[in-house]
């Protein structure tokens, strides 16, 4: 399944165990391919294995079996590979005792960034913290720390950005700000971005493709649109006249049973229960109802997610 675009991350049957062979693996045969320029969302409930996956990408953990390649290399073998990656982990990795400027400067030096002062100030300005550059991180709010962490993660212009729950613990306003920053990074700088999250909303807005992880396994992996359309046997019927909807609903209820119908204004969502769309249209038209449109029913990402992870979604 090779495609034309370059793979930035590839995982082949990636498996990680922390316990003995009797215990189920934390990550179980994950296959994944993230391409250049993609904003990829990796969602799943707490404990699904998202952070473990990221650590495997970073070479902070070694696979128990299977393999992973980042830019075609095995992570953790060469220090140079790490220079191409930017990270913001769950713990922002900032020292409370250092100032905002010092925090970024330390990493800039370790990554061998030149012209540091100018670059750091431009980034601090980008995340709205320039006036706080000489204040200690310990005085910052969680949102400010996350923004500072984000600024630090891109100081060396990485080609790949790995983010672990970038908006966890933030208030809605700060979440929005982080999301907008990420949007800007992805579009303006053409970075490949991989986001761990359990904020469906965030992922839906930011990501082109997502994978849903549950108990160490990928249960779905596709574009947001395809995942939402994946409700087979469900159609949405729209009638030209609102009052027709009531009649149509009664008719369909007699045909398919009451559970198969749900009316939303002029639209009716129908579960076909094995019947076909032409049959449905014929039934309605023969009764003199004017059918405007019949389309596949789109599901909300949230429904897709909860169908997969069940009650333990923990989505915020």
């Amino acid at each position, binding site marked *: 399944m090779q495609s034309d675009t370059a793979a930035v991350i590839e995982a082949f049957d990636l498996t990680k165990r*922390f316990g003995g062979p009797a215990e189920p693996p934390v990550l179980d045969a994950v296959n994944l391919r993230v391409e250049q320029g993609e904003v990829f969302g990796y969602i799943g409930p707490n404990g699904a294995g998202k952070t473990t996956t990221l*650590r495997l990408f*970073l*070479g*902070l*953990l*070694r696979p128990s079996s299977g393999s992973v390649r980042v830019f075609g290399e095995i992570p*953790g073998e060469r*220090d*140079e*590979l*790490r*220079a191409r*990656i930017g*990270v913001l*982990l*769950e*713990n*922002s*990795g*900032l*020292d409370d*005792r*250092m100032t905002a400027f*010092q925090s970024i400067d*330390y*990493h800039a*030096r*370790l*990554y*061998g960034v030149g012209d540091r002062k100018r670059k750091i100030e431009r980034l601090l300005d980008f995340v709205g913290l320039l006036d706080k550059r000489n204040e200690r991180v310990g005085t910052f709010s969680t949102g400010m720390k996350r923004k500072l962490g984000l600024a630090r993660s891109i100081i060396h212009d990485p080609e790949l950005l790995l983010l672990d729950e970038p908006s966890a613990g933030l208030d809605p306003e700060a979440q929005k700000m982080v999301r907008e920053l990420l949007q800007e990074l992805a579009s303006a700088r053409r970075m490949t971005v991989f986001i761990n999250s359990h904020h469906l909303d965030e992922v839906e807005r930011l990501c082109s493709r997502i994978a849903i992880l549950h108990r160490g396994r990928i249960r779905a992996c596709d574009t947001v649109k395809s995942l939402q359309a994946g409700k087979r046997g469900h159609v949405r019927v729209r009638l030209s006249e609102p009052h027709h909807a009531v009649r149509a609903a009664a008719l369909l209820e007699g045909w398919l049973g009451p559970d198969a119908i749900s009316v939303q204004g002029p639209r009716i969502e129908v579960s076909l229960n094995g019947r076909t769309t032409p049959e449905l249209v014929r039934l309605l038209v023969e009764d003199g109802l004017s059918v405007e449109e019949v389309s596949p029913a789109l599901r909300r990402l949230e429904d897709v997610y909860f169908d997969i992870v069940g009650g333990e979604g923990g989505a915020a």
Partner: protein
Amino acid sequence: MKTFDHVLTVASKEIREIVTNRGLVFSGVFFAGFLSVMNGLGLGDADVGLRAQLNNALFSTCALIAMFVGYLYAGQTYLREKQTGIAETLLCAPVSLRSIWFGKALGVMVPSWIIAILAAATITAIASRNAGQIMMPNSVLIVHLLVAVPLFILAAVALLGFAQLMLGMRENMVVNMVTIFVLFTALAGTQLIVKRAEFVTWGAVGLLVAASLALLAITAGLSRFLSRERIVRTIS
């Protein structure tokens, strides 16, 4: 060259963290001050002369005070960064584990060594007052304080830092207790030998330098067992 830059970057960051932290500076200075004043006042009143006692004390006590302060700062440098999870982000930087490990040891050594020099000055000053004349340390002691002591602290902190990176939290508690026990025993032990015949010789200094270098080499060899996975999995 890159490795050298990384070591210096890590070391200078740690030095700055320590010297700008009032609590750490205070506890280091207080501890060293207390021990050196006690030591200085304890000199005299023995079979051997004050000169010999002073030399013995400067030789042994200063190295131990430095190590005590080094132990105090190592916990802040290695263990604290690991426990708080800050270290994980550092492990994602294009820096070798050895550069991180050694840079931190260097960063702890410098302020500990400065405090050791201050302790030596304090002991000397108290002894001079007792003797009623200024007593300057001889050339053996100057080389000791300028070469052997920093090497000794570096080796000890590097070993301790290695253990702190390598081991889990519970094991580290044991390591800490053992370290404190060893340090107190050694401090008590020096009190017994300070008032005996002078043992400060070029040979003794050379021995300490050789032992420190050997310890450093052994720990550097051991550091091959350090891995990012090992550190990440022993965080909690």
